[in-house]
């Protein structure tokens, strides 16, 4: 018997079996639920009810999606259950546009939807990686929720629910970016019992809030400041108190401390630092006692992957490169401010396998040249994927043909400002970075914006491997409410 005849016979046998399976189910009055279903041709053939039984053991929604896309018969069998497994998959895609009440309602529908909501807000709003990406000094739309929380502090008097509700309805309006749902609290704290001055929260109310709801927080940003009307005795906070506050937030992943004036004083840290197993990202900005930072970092150092600080942290007498490496072995992303070339050199000699480096501002007195800058970060040459420089260096040239310094083979994205656009020594460096695909420039103003777009197009000509140039610019109209926000313009390479 030739092959085609054999195949025909096999096919006809399968179809016969399939018919039989279908008709058997039709004849069985107890199988109404599956009697219209047809099994796909498989070896061996299984009845629709056997398939349905097998599908009940599949718990992952993604796997059930694979089942319905595999063949029309399975799709038909699971058609009535699609809502159950597709809704949790769709929810993450629409959640940003839902108001907070609807998001909370979705948490109460069933376990799958609750998990979908919780995972999404966690990954979207409080993931340390995402926050590292968002925190730069551009007030983009993604940062709206930080601003809103300052209003919240004023409103959050526990006796005044109308104010709380008003606040919540306001943040709920912002496309689902309800910070509270995301477990995020960023607030200014004044060191007295006065309430509602300059949109700040009193330390007393902060402590009450943290005691009550602190376990829900995954992000805590505190800016301590003075209150002009109080007695001087109340104007400082001891580091011992800060340690006490940490005990209320055991689930925090991102921790940020800043002091607007020198109001944080070193106290006896009698209490042990509490356990914060999820802490991965620490940000220290202004006026914090070095000893406190040092002790905090020593305690949580093993678990930290992201560090955001000033140069003083690296240049302090006690923090030698080898000690930093020992205390913070897993740091991969660093953001530094007020740094000099020497500071960068020291940072580079720590030999962290950094993938991301952000320089906010250089120390104005010791601003490096471009060549000094690249040389000082060469310690990260083999690992760096993203580099951001928001301040200009000395000696950027519009002409010249000298070769750039050593290449960074893994660097895929560089972000800088308009000072760097079309500068020859900067572009020569970029040409040596074989993986570079994306450039971002902060051009700040729409004034001369067309000229910046022309420069961006020229950039795509000068740097053939770059696929897109992003320009961040101001909306330009001071009368607009969003004047302080920045829009972005993307210039893609077209083939």
């Amino acid at each position, binding site marked *: 018997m030739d092959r085609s005849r054999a195949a025909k016979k096999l096919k006809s046998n399968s179809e016969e079996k399939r018919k039989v399976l279908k008709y058997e189910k039709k004849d069985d009055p107890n199988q109404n639920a599956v009697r219209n279903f047809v099994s796909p041709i498989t070896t061996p053939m299984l009845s629709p009810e056997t398939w349905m039984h097998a599908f009940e053991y599949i718990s992952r929604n993604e796997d059930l999606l694979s089942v319905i896309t595999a063949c029309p018969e399975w*799709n038909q069998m699971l058609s009535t259950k*699609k*809502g159950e497994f597709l809704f949790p*998959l769709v929810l993450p*895609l*629409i959640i940003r*546009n839902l*108001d907070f009440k609807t998001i*909370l309602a979705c948490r109460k529908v069933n376990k799958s939807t609750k998990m979908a909501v919780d995972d999404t807000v966690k990954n979207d709003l409080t993931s340390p990686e995402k926050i590292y990406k968002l925190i730069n000094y551009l007030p983009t739309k993604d940062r709206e929720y930080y601003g809103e929380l300052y209003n919240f502090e004023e409103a959050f008097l526990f006796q005044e629910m109308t104010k709380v509700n008003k606040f919540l309805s306001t943040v709920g309006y912002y496309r689902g970016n309800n910070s509270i749902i995301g477990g995020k609290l960023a607030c200014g704290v004044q060191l007295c019992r006065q309430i509602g001055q300059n949109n700040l929260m009193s330390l007393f109310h902060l402590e009450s809030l943290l005691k009550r709801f602190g376990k829900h927080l995954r992000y805590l940003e505190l800016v301590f400041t003075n209150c002009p009307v109080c007695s001087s005795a109340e104007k400082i906070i001891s580091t011992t108190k800060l340690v006490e506050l940490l005990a209320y937030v055991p689930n925090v992943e991102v921790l940020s401390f800043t002091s607007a004036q020198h109001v944080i004083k070193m106290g006896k840290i009698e209490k042990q630092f509490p356990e914060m197993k999820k802490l991965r990202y620490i940000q220290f900005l202004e006026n914090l006692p070095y000893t406190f930072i040092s002790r905090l970092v020593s305690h949580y150092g093993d678990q930290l992957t992201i560090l955001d600080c000033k140069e003083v942290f690296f240049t302090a007498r006690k923090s030698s490169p080898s000690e930093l490496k020992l205390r913070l072995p897993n740091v991969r992303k660093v953001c530094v401010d007020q740094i000099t070339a020497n500071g960068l050199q020291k940072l580079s000699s720590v030999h962290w396998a950094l993938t991301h480096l952000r320089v906010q501002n250089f120390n104005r007195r010791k601003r490096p040249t471009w060549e000094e800058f690249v040389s000082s970060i060469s310690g990260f040459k083999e690992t760096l994927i993203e580099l951001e420089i928001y301040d200009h260096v000395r000696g950027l040239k519009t002409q010249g043909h000298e070769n750039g310094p050593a290449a960074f083979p893994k660097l895929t994205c560089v972000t800088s400002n308009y000072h760097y656009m079309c500068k020859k020594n900067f572009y020569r460096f970029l040409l040596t970075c074989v993986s570079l695909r994306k450039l971002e420039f902060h051009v700040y103003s729409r004034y001369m914006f067309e000229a910046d777009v022309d420069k961006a197009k020229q950039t795509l000509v000068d740097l053939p491997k770059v696929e897109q140039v992003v320009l961040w610019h101001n909306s330009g109209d001071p009368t607009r409410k969003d004047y302080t926000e920045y829009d972005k313009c993307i210039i893609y390479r077209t083939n």
Partner: protein
Amino acid sequence: MALVRVISSDGAAFLVSQRLAKRSGKLKTEIETFRKSSDNSEAQPEIRIVTIRAEILRLVLQWLQQHQNDPVLPANQNEQDGRGDAEMGQSQWDRDFLAPMDLGIVMELILAANHLEVKGLLDITCKLVESKITGRTVDEIRTAFKLKSDFKGNEEEQTRLENRWCVEN
């Protein structure tokens, strides 16, 4: 006219122009990858989409055909700057296109548009699902999407208590 063969998970093949296919970010990347790896510049690319079945793929292509002259929106526009669908209008054609679909099909279409990086289709389908849940009670959402509560014991009460952090003091 350069063509591309797009094959669904269940084996149905659709022959579409490359110009049309490139309006999907995913298909555009696949076509470019094929071009780079193929010696023959005249060869017809064949792309298998293993996660989308024929009925859904046909709907995506139908939508692309109708919107082939619209400006292309970056797939991640919303994520990056918060703009996008709010400013986008929905045409009568889109409304007629979505009207006969049940929610199961719409949700499959959302996942397909997301996978194929078709921003405009993703926006209108998401909007439809959003409209079915925004402002609804828990029970209404369950009914609309045929969902059952599987909370056991005090799990539902626990969830309600967790929600208090956001809505009550």
